[in-house]
């Protein structure tokens, strides 16, 4: 799995950072998404998919092999 985030679309809801903090973080200055792990561990993949589904501005894209 490969994860992409679009910081221009992000509205800083923080739901990804709450769901999978190992993969997503928020920038200190404005709460916008920061990708910590573009290729997350397999064990985290279901949670990453959930984070992408719940992202209100659809700023998370997942590339599945």
């Amino acid at each position, binding site marked *: 799995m490969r994860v992409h985030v679009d910081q221009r679309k992000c509205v800083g809801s923080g739901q990804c950072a709450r769901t999978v903090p190992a993969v997503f973080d928020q920038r200190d200055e404005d*709460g916008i998404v920061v990708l910590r792990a573009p290729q997350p561990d397999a064990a985290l993949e279901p949670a990453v998919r959930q984070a992408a589904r719940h992202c209100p501005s659809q700023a998370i894209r997942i590339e599945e092999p």
Partner: protein
Amino acid sequence: MQPPLPETPRFPFRRECPFDPPSLYARARAAGPLFAVTLWNGRRAWLVTRHEEIRAVLTDDRRFSGAMAHPDFPTVTEARVTVDRNERAFVGMDNPAHDHYRRMFTREFSVRRMLALEPRIAAIAESVIDELAAHGPPADLAGTLAVKFPSLVMSELVGSPYEDHRFIIDCAVGRHGLTQTPAEAHDKARALAGYFRRLIDAREANPGDDLVSRIIESHVKPGTLSRDDFAEIGAMILRAGHDTTTNMIGMGTLLVLRDERLRRRLEGNPASVDAAVEELLRFVTPVQFSPRRVALEDVEIGGVTVRKGEGLFLLLASANRDERVFDDPDRLDFGRDASDHLTFGYGIHQCLGQTLARYELQAIYPALLRRLQGLRLAVPLEEIRFKDDMQIYGVHNLPVAW
């Protein structure tokens, strides 16, 4: 056999059961994703009833506007027209203006900031329960703790003096009831913005460790945010932070007190509390008549054409009972994964304070049950007054004993 769906009935509808949305939502949802209704002013509007289509509309900013000042923006009351036309916070803006302003405030509600606040939230929860315990049974939970707890948390976060909370709530409630005159609603909206404007002056003269002082430093002083614009946004934050959480505490507690198995789940480990809170958020859905949009062009949804200029109500309570997403949706079930609920909305306007709300609810429900052993309703259910007269649903009273 169900009777046929009424043709463009007057919206909003009455609830038949205080714990469920009006039954017409489910019937309309079965028939299609859109349902035409008539508003107070005789205009036609559309209810969007299904989870998938609600998400689609709320993420289609090109064809649907959330600009509350739009002359065709739909409302449930005449008073709300006046309030909407005068809404100057980003909740009523489309992009790019929305993101411009929202981004100044997102870090104040970031997960990290809320995690740091969690010990204080827990301490405030204990303190309001101490007070209730000292008062002794019976007590009206809706008028006391359910109001006081979010007020104290907001006071600490924002920097507004706690003794002002009755005024803040009075403004919030006066602005989004269903029975106010336009003049009353407008006055309440203006009064709260005026209050926040004075709060900005006070914090500018005397800064503290709070949202107002931080935004003054980061955005007002550098000149990126005017004091008047900040006052409008501040009024929105105060409103949103009080009333919604208060109503979740009241309704959530009532639901849990009715079922011993639910109560035990809330006394369990943090993961089971987290799941229970998500399910309560799904089941209650206090925000009844928002979000709303107006079509910027003709749009076809599920075989129906919404005309340019027509309004849409995205019924979150209906999305949260959508059989396509939730099995047996009218059952309150703490064992389910309810995380697909849309209680905080969806799209760019999704609730800024949702992490705060979650942490407040995760703290208060278990603490209530742990500290007030044997907590129970002190009156028959018939004596509970439900907020059928409000845009944010909940209970007006909740007499409890323990």
